[in-house]
């Protein structure tokens, strides 16, 4: 990477094509976006894939119904990490419990949406696009938000997905392309240190095709973004130093990569990571415990790292799952697909504590919790109060933001 000239790279990319560089916006939109974004704020989304069992995450330990419906799975009163006289965290969520005590965690309870769908894929798509299956779904809420918000005067991607799995639908945009990054090392194109090779692949990826094949246009613009992003991201790795010890798991690794990218001054507004495995139909206790420990410890380490960089007023973490799980346990020491569940916001500027009400265990619908807060109300808070954008077109409807951030944030 020694002889590398970013300048030559950027100069050789043609700005005229619809989607060429990172942001990929047309020039007029570039300007509008630059004006729209001043805060430099960052959202890190953690997707808890598979349907997190909210009731064993934020536990209504004082409620006898909880124990009755979960003879095998209920967490004993004396081992929960108390939040108040009714609720407590799962014992392996020490990371969250500490964040709450430090005033850096908000727990939004009973989040869901009307007429809930219990299919993983459908429900996840609903969370990601804010649209039902009968609607046309050709972009996601983060994609739409970044089209409005992102500060694309630079060349950094507005959003980055960490991981090798397919990109979340929420990041789908009709105008922007967002890279997926597994590790910084993997993001380095081999041979790119050789000038002639680099220039050849770069120019050939940039040249717009004009043969009426929309798939080819898509692949061309994606290849162009990839080669640009590769250069930028591999160059940032050198800057990062941290005294925080991250736990050894994949989520922590990914969050640390996010921390590295943030520390390098990348102008990216949204990072997206996943923690998979929450579909606990059978033998739930061990699996769920391990997942929650990963979640709590990794987010805790990440927030500590961000604090040390003095970036804490710029970064919020948001964790969600596509649904909670059935209140009553099943016969396989597991739980089936349910509905409402908690969401989490972490960072220095979140309104720490419990937000909203725990859904009643008595008043169920088909054996499932009734939601109190629509997930789009949290999104609205993120869009309006964190990113200072209008949420209505992004969310395809008007949703009252739930107070989730401290005033003037």
């Amino acid at each position, binding site marked *: 990477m020694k002889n590398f000239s970013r300048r030559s790279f950027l100069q050789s990319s043609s700005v005229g094509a619809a989607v060429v560089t990172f942001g990929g916006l047309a020039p007029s939109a570039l300007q509008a976006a630059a004006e729209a974004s001043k805060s430099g704020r960052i959202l890190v989304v953690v997707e808890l894939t598979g349907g997190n069992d909210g009731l064993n995450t934020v536990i209504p330990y004082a409620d006898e119904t909880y124990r009755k419906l979960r003879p095998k799975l209920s967490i004993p009163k004396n081992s929960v990490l108390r939040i108040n006289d009714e609720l407590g965290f799962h014992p392996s969520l020490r990371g969250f419990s500490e964040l709450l005590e430090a005033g850096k965690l908000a727990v939004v309870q009973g989040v869901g949406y009307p007429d809930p769908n219990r299919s993983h894929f459908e429900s996840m798509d609903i969370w990601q696009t804010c649209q039902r299956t009968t609607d046309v779904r050709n972009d996601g809420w983060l994609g739409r938000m970044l089209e409005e918000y992102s500060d694309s005067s630079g060349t950094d991607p507005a959003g980055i997905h960490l991981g090798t799995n397919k990109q979340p639908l929420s990041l789908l945009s009709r105008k922007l392309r967002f890279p997926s990054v*597994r590790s910084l090392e993997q993001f380095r194109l081999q041979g790119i240190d050789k000038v002639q090779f680099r220039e050849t692949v770069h120019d050939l990826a940039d040249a717009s095709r004009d043969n009426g*094949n929309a798939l080819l246009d898509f692949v061309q613009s994606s290849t162009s973004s990839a080669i640009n992003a590769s250069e930028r991201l591999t160059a940032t790795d050198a800057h990062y130093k941290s005294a925080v010890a991250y736990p050894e798991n994949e989520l922590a690794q990914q969050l640390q990569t996010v921390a590295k990218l943030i520390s390098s001054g990348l102008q990216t507004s949204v990072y997206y990571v996943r923690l998979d495995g929450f579909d606990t139909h059978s033998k739930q206790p061990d699996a769920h415990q391990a997942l929650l420990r990963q979640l709590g410890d990794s987010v805790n380490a990440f927030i500590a790292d961000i604090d040390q960089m003095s970036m804490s007023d710029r970064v919020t973490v948001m964790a969600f799952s596509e649904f909670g799980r059935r209140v009553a346990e099943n016969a396989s020491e597991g739980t089936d697909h349910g509905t409402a569940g908690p969401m989490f916001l972490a960072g220095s500027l979140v309104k720490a504590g419990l937000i909203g009400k725990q859904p009643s265990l008595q008043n169920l619908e088909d054996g499932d919790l009734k939601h109190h807060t629509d997930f789009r109300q949290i999104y609205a808070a993120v869009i309006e109060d964190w990113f200072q954008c209008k949420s209505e077109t992004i969310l395809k409807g008007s949703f009252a933001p739930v107070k989730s951030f401290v005033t003037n944030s």
Partner: protein
Amino acid sequence: MNQILNNNIDPQWAWSEYKANDECPWNLRTAAHLYRRAGFGATHEEIVIAAGKEPLAEVDEIFAAKEPSSFANEMKSLADAAIASGNVRQLSAWWSYRMLHTPAQLLEKATLFWHGHFATSAEKVTQAKLMLTQNELLRSFSIGDFPELVMKVSHDPAMLLYLDSATNRKAHPNENFAREIMELFCLGEGNYTENDIRELARCFTGWEIRRDEFRFNPYQHDAGNKIIFGQTGEFSGEDGVKLVLEQKATPEFVVSKLIRFFVMDEPVADEALVAPLAKQFRNDGMRIEPILKRILKSNLFFSNYSIGRKVRSPVEFAIGLLRCLEGSTNTFALAEAMQTLGQGLMYPPSVKGWDGGRTWVNSSTLLGRSNLIRNLITNEKTRFGKQSLQDYFVGKELYSSRSIIDYMEGIAFAVPISDQAKDRIESLMKPDTPSSLVEGFHALCTLPEFQLG
């Protein structure tokens, strides 16, 4: 997402038997297309032979191709070794090897389709033996009877373990398998109700996996009346599967997926385009071979609606490149690389399988694909017709950079390469040394055109 419905393809024209014409000629390009879709790819020599025959007869030949017993025996002993290792990744390598070397490519391509359809991951089903059993089931029914395949899959230990249905008790029916058989295997979302799922789940109570085999436990079966799709009866699990198969949505759902996999990513076939095939599929007792033959013999398949209108999956990308150059390599490393690119054999990302199409592509996977090319051609384990890449091209009497580029375009590209791109790559390849061949070949296979199949 991104469903561009198409309303201007005439179904009558689309599914009529292909006849070569000026717009859709039968030539090296269309023959290579047929091999890419009905398999993974073919060598220049194979394409030349195919183009000299009648296209429809060529399709029949592809369907009739059988694995010689020597090959089947070799596969069996390699599978045994993989099982003995206890490592499912060895099984992924084994399947990669099979795709790379089988003379019956369609069988593997169709098996891959069903692996994505009845997706089961060794991430959860950690026993190599059970994954192999399922893989063999999918292969033996890959162009067989769909209803029988569904029934067998419903009793398949790997599937039931994957969907947490290894125990299924009367008092607490597990809904997972009932949901997926409707949503993902037969009907598609929107063609059933939540209540249908709950009732169907009751039918499956008493189904168990014991000592790695399916067993029916009558003591745990809920023998009461169930109401599914408005029909009432004391349905068993098998009755439940049959009820699902009888739904009108089943042939439509399966045919749509076949069209998307074998013909085109986009546009998504609309109802009118699916209808004639769905009707035939239904009337034929949902036998897969006749419907797939009709698809691969159709005007639509040999038209520009299809050629170059699919994003290659990682398996199609890597196996395809190697097959058209008689390549062989370390298949363990290859299988791992394909997994990193998003398509781990035996490791689909979820029960929904791979979404395919545009979702294969993002910055990370594109850079990974490009790096895989360089790793493959510089790895000494990779041989082309048992030689180095350079010697292979010399053996084909390809002495100039331009002739290599043109040769590659003919066998490995579904979309033509512009002269300007050829010029640039030629100058990168120019000084005819092994290292400049690597640079040029790597740049060639990093072209966006190379991602389409």
